[in-house]
């Protein structure tokens, strides 16, 4: 399987002198097509920084970041913006919807910027909004949407179009458990149909939708866990419930 995202010994230092923060301290990570990787770790451990660097929104201080085989660290700002737009779908922790655009326009924007005809872009955007279950008029502006509704718009925007890398920073933050699960199902389906995904979450129930979980602490990967495939996890009644007549 093709490696879509590859980080090699990536560091990110914020600021300088006595106030400097080592947000990432040498991270190695490869995410293949069809693979969803969860990132967990306490607040301030560098999860958002990792996603920003992976998506070309922030530059690594050292190390190498490859997106779809291309070295993002060596690109100029314009080329990097292009990769970001074309290959990367991003759900921001603080959503980042554009207030002056409607829900529909927010979702259609990355496609339109990419040269897709307006009508086609809007049709795809509408389909994406339906898929995430937005239950209000797509012509509403972000400020007229609840937190959960804004979240769905942000997710639709990240999943729309042919993106190969989906980066999601707490995409379930403002969602109830049923909608949260629906979002993970969407993300998983998208990855299964040929994208690579990186998902930041505090919630193990959502991380369990990924193929593996990496644990970050103080900018360093402290562990990875993977696996967990059994014929039927409910198939061993003796362990679950004692029989009693």
């Amino acid at each position: 399987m093709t490696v879509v995202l590859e980080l090699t010994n990536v560091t990110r230092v914020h600021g300088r002198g006595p106030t400097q923060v080592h947000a990432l301290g040498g991270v190695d990570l490869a995410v293949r097509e069809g693979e969803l990787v969860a990132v967990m770790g306490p607040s301030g451990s560098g999860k958002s920084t990792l996603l920003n660097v992976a998506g070309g929104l922030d530059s690594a201080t050292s190390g190498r970041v490859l997106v779809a085989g291309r070295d993002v660290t060596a690109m100029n700002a314009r080329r990097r913006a292009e990769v970001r737009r074309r290959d990367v779908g991003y759900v921001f922790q603080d959503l980042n919807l554009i207030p002056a655009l409607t829900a529909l326009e927010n979702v259609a924007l990355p496609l339109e910027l990419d040269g897709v005809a307006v009508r086609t872009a809007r049709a795809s955007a509408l389909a994406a909004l339906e898929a995430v279950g937005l239950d209000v008029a797509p012509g509403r502006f972000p400020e007229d949407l609840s937190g959960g509704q804004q979240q769905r718009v942000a997710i639709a925007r990240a999943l729309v179009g042919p993106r190969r890398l989906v980066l999601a920073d707490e995409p379930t933050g403002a969602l109830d458990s049923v909608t949260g699960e629906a979002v993970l199902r969407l993300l998983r389906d998208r990855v299964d149909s040929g994208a690579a995904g990186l998902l930041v979450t505090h919630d193990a129930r959502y991380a369990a939708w990924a193929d593996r979980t990496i644990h970050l602490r103080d900018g360093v990967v402290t562990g990875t866990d993977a696996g967990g495939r059994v014929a039927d996890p409910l198939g061993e009644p003796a362990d679950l419930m004692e029989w009693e007549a």
Partner: protein
Amino acid sequence: MSVRQGFLALLSEQPMNGYQLRQEFERRTGGSWPLNIGQSYTTLNRLHRDGLVETVDDQATDGDPPSVLASHRPAERFHLTESGRETAVSWWTTPVHRGKAERDELAIKIALAVTVPGIDVAAVVREQRSETMRALRALTRAKRDVDPLADRARALILDAQIFAIEAETRWLDHVEATVAATPQSERPKRNTR
């Protein structure tokens, strides 16, 4: 709960024979609780003995119920007696008792790890979390394969386990954070009186 309770609940819908009961029980518990024939007939035997279920034969003879169920024809259908119906209803209206929790091997292991000198608690917690996440992934995969509308029982039972295991991971995170904030030297040790 017991198989007995489950059978009474099922029979409150409609009379069934032993085979149907067993099938229905397995289906409605989402395949999480397979029964063998012996279990299901022992249960029926006791329900019959306790006067909670009866067969058409019992009503016809109108005397002492035959005590040995094996004498019944396999196709014979059971239905609830009046007292069986009451028992079934009272089960629905009584919440499941959350009494003293079972001894939890994991909690005890971690509690010991925290107090026994020289144990790397963080490492114990990490190992456990990997295992717990594996279990969670297995359940989640099973859940993905279930159509929640077609098989609600299975989806529900998988969810129950998923939420319980999620709680375990949160507790492990909490232990890890607590231990990280407490230097080894300040941890409680053996009682040194």
